[in-house]
């Protein structure tokens, strides 16, 4: 039944568009993932600009409260579920089979199915705008605010949100199964587990997290759907005797591991880029892998640190676990820094973004450890300080990592280099804009500004910092136009990349750019995690 998948059939007669729409090639699917994610990145970014514009000055100038709530709910949902997670899955799709020397993913057609669920989900989500309002209860959609009750989520928007998230979740689960089988079963000869590139390891741990956590959010979404549409009584304590905290417990059981789903592959990408551009191996390869696994395991025991102020969780346990998860993260940070140490740093755009990741994720991580302190969290929870923290992790971490990965693998994907000058300009602008937007939010939160408010009093003392953050937001937007421009000029007239423009370490650089269908004509011998380095320089001692 599967012969059609793999026969290099007579495709000449079919159009390129048809070819892309029906492809089961992991490379094309990976690129489609990335393109789709960028589309939603820009949609979510426009919503973010709407939020920042409204908050620039006290008073409601552009939106009313309800529209504002829809904007930030859609911003959060899109950025998390339709940008960061699929974007990283896209890079994984493109790079993982290449890095382990496999011809494709284990289940190519399921791979295509995972991909095409995403735009469908995105359309469902946004359909809310034409059916009387989207979901407006935040990306967390806490019950009972997300219940079908007066002054809460009465329209279809919330149901569409649920359907979209279930679709995305299914796509993620299928993707995770695909990654796991591919990594376990399709490695090239010699590619033992402890010779796999770090990106493959992080994708592996991520896939385990997705596999274990995503079904749990599916269950809570379905319960919410039953509550809303079939008179169920899971989460509405007033009307029907349910439990509002139950929703949060199940939701965060998924959504905290989801944070690691959103950042581990970015860490993996950084861990590919730093060694190549310092011309050194990653410092502490195995320690890094164990740290990744530890983060994955501990990630399941910290969910209630999102619920310290509910008065309904056992505080010391979740506090100590949250503190402890900082340790493997710290180990990684030191491994990265000592990879740079005594290296020979080529300050190309991918390395700049990777360094941006290190500096910004450092702040986000330290913020996380600070708020693990329960009494401190009493003060900071649900304020702009938390907004700042999560953006330092997910923008300062994941997005900087994604940009680094894009500049790093673009030559492999297209056969053309991206423009260095524009790339560096984008980095500088994005770095400045990011800090201008999100650093002031620390201070706003400490000064007492709660998150998710459409308006604030002009006498609360939050005016200047909000204006600053809005200016920063538009600076980020400007940096993104530079990215688009760079993509356009590089696709049209970028310098030819050759097989291995960066002197890479891993197998993807051993094939042509872009690689042929089924990836490799022959593979080099694999005797370490850096087969291409060994090929160029001979093998260096393990320790």
């Amino acid at each position: 039944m599967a012969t059609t998948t793999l026969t290099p059939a007579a495709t000449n007669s079919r159009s390129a568009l048809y070819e892309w729409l029906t492809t089961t090639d992991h490379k094309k699917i990976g690129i489609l993932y990335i393109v789709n994610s960028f589309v939603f990145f820009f949609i979510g970014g426009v919503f973010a600009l709407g939020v920042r514009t409204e908050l620039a000055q006290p008073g409601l100038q552009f939106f009313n409260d309800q529209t504002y709530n829809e904007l930030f709910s859609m911003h959060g949902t899109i950025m998390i579920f339709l940008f960061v997670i699929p974007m990283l899955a896209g890079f994984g799709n493109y790079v993982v089979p290449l890095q382990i020397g496999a011809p494709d993913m284990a289940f190519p057609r399921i791979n295509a199915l995972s991909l095409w669920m995403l735009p469908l989900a995105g359309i469902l989500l946004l359909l809310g705008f034409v059916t009387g309002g989207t979901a407006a209860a935040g990306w967390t959609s806490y019950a009972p605010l997300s219940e079908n009750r007066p002054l809460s989520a009465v329209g279809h928007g919330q149901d569409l949100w649920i359907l979209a998230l279930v679709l995305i979740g299914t796509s993620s689960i299928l993707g995770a199964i695909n990654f796991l089988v591919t990594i376990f079963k399709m490695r090239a000869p010699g590619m033992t587990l402890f010779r796999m590139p770090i990106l493959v390891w992080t994708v592996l741990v991520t896939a385990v997290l997705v596999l274990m956590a995503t079904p749990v959010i599916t269950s809570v979404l379905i319960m919410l759907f039953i509550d809303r549409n079939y008179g169920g009584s899971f989460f509405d304590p007033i009307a029907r005797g349910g439990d509002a905290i139950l929703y949060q417990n199940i939701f965060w059981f998924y959504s905290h591991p989801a944070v690691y789903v959103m950042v581990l592959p970015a860490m993996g990408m950084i861990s590919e880029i730093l060694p190549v551009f310092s011309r050194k191996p990653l410092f502490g390869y195995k320690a890094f892998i164990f740290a990744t696994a530890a983060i994955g395991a501990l990630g399941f025991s910290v969910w209630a640190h999102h619920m310290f102020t509910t008065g309904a969780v056992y505080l010391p346990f979740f506090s100590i676990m949250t503190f402890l998860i900082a340790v493997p993260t710290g180990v990684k940070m030191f491994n990265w820094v000592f990879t740079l140490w005594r290296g020979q740093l080529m300050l190309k755009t991918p390395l700049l973004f990777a360094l941006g990741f290190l500096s910004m994720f450092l702040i986000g991580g330290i913020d996380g450890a600070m708020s693990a302190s329960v009494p401190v969290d009493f003060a900071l929870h649900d304020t702009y300080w938390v907004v700042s923290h999560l953006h330092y992790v997910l923008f300062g971490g994941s997005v900087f990592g994604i940009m680094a990965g894009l500049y790093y693998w673009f030559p492999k994907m297209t056969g053309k280099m991206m423009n260095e000058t524009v790339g560096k300009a984008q980095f500088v602008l994005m770095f400045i804009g990011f800090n201008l937007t999100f650093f002031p939010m620390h201070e706003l939160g400490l000064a007492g500004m709660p998150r998710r408010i459409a308006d604030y009093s002009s006498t609360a003392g939050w005016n200047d910092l909000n204006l600053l953050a809005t200016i920063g937001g538009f600076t980020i937007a400007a940096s993104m136009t530079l990215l688009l421009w760079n993509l356009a000029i590089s696709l049209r007239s970028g310098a030819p990349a050759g097989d291995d423009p960066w002197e890479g370490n891993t197998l993807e650089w051993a094939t042509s750019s872009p690689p042929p269908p089924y990836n490799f004509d022959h593979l080099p011998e694999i005797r370490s995690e850096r087969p291409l380095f060994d090929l160029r320089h001979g093998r260096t001692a393990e320790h």
Partner: protein
Amino acid sequence: MSSSPRSRSARPAIFALAIVALIVGVSLLLLAVGVNVLHIGDTFVAGLFPPVAVTQQGAKIRDLYTIVFLIAVAIFVVVEALIIWSVVRYRRKPGDDTLPPQTHGNNIAEFVWTIVPTLIVIFMFFVSWDTLNAVDTSAADAQTTKITAQAGQFQWQFDYIGPDGKTVVYTEFLPLVSQGGGMMVPAGRTVQLSLVSHDVIHAFYVPQFLFKRDVIPGRTNQFDFTVDAADAGQTFRGQCAELCGSGHSIMLFEVKALAPADFDKWLADKAAAATASPAPAPSGSPGSSSAPAPSGNPGASSAPAPSQGATGPTLQVTASGIQYVEKTLTAPANTPFQIVFDNQDPGTPHNVSIHKDSPTGEEVFKGEVFPGVAKKTYDVPALAAGTYGYVCTVHPTMTGTLTVQ
């Protein structure tokens, strides 16, 4: 991809000097155009700390924050310095193609940077736990003032519990001091606050307490706080901190600290007035909620002047589901008239207040706030012809238009 061979002598020192020069230059430039850089620096540093706490518990949290924050800054500075140093020092010099030493790792180093952070976070955990035990306990005694804050979309009300610990002796429906309401607390005495929600999750948050606690339907949360005696007379702003719907940003309240004697007298007066007035509203007409002049609006406090027999028509207004059923009203000009206000939201306080031009305009009449289900009649003084907006003082999203002609 190979960069053009530019200045070969760019050494780290020069690089660092250039950055310092840039910072100094920009600062001088800003000074020159009249921006007080030092002041901005001060504000920036002060902004990295929470406000000075006004409760004993908050002060402990602030001390803890300072410890945690300083550790965080120390870690940040060390790691960031390592990153910057590595980048500056180990940049690839043009033309230098020697392979750097291929260090794969170092077990001692890995051990050290696993153990040291572990010790640091365990230390942070224990100081946090210590503080948690100090701030998150109940030390209620006979002296303790008991208050229940009831949150609903989108207002706060405060029930003051009598000495028996059960009876509500007085209910304050208006959340802001400027409206004549707010939550009064005795400075220097422990307050035990219970939190009750009727609809969705809210959160009680006063930034100067450095504390918040969720208000969850189906579950009563409780916490204690003690405002410092020295802060008597001050008002602290508070706000719902958990997204609760389209009125989340307007769900404000204020806490005012009174000297204990003043507080006792205030509560006794309110309780007496409440028992004197007929049910269900705990306040008499002109006395309590509506009278204390909202910032000198002409006619605002002149409101209900007990019925000297209005000559105009009687208008019907119904509130249901945090909405007025009647969105438009018409009244004759220059004639006093009556509004029969039917509040059908159980337990939710509403009123009708009339403002010039629009619901946010100048207030010309304010009806008494009372919880449903109940009905009251307001005597509205004569109004000049024109368009007015009416709004619920508690719920600024409840609005309608009154045409006087």
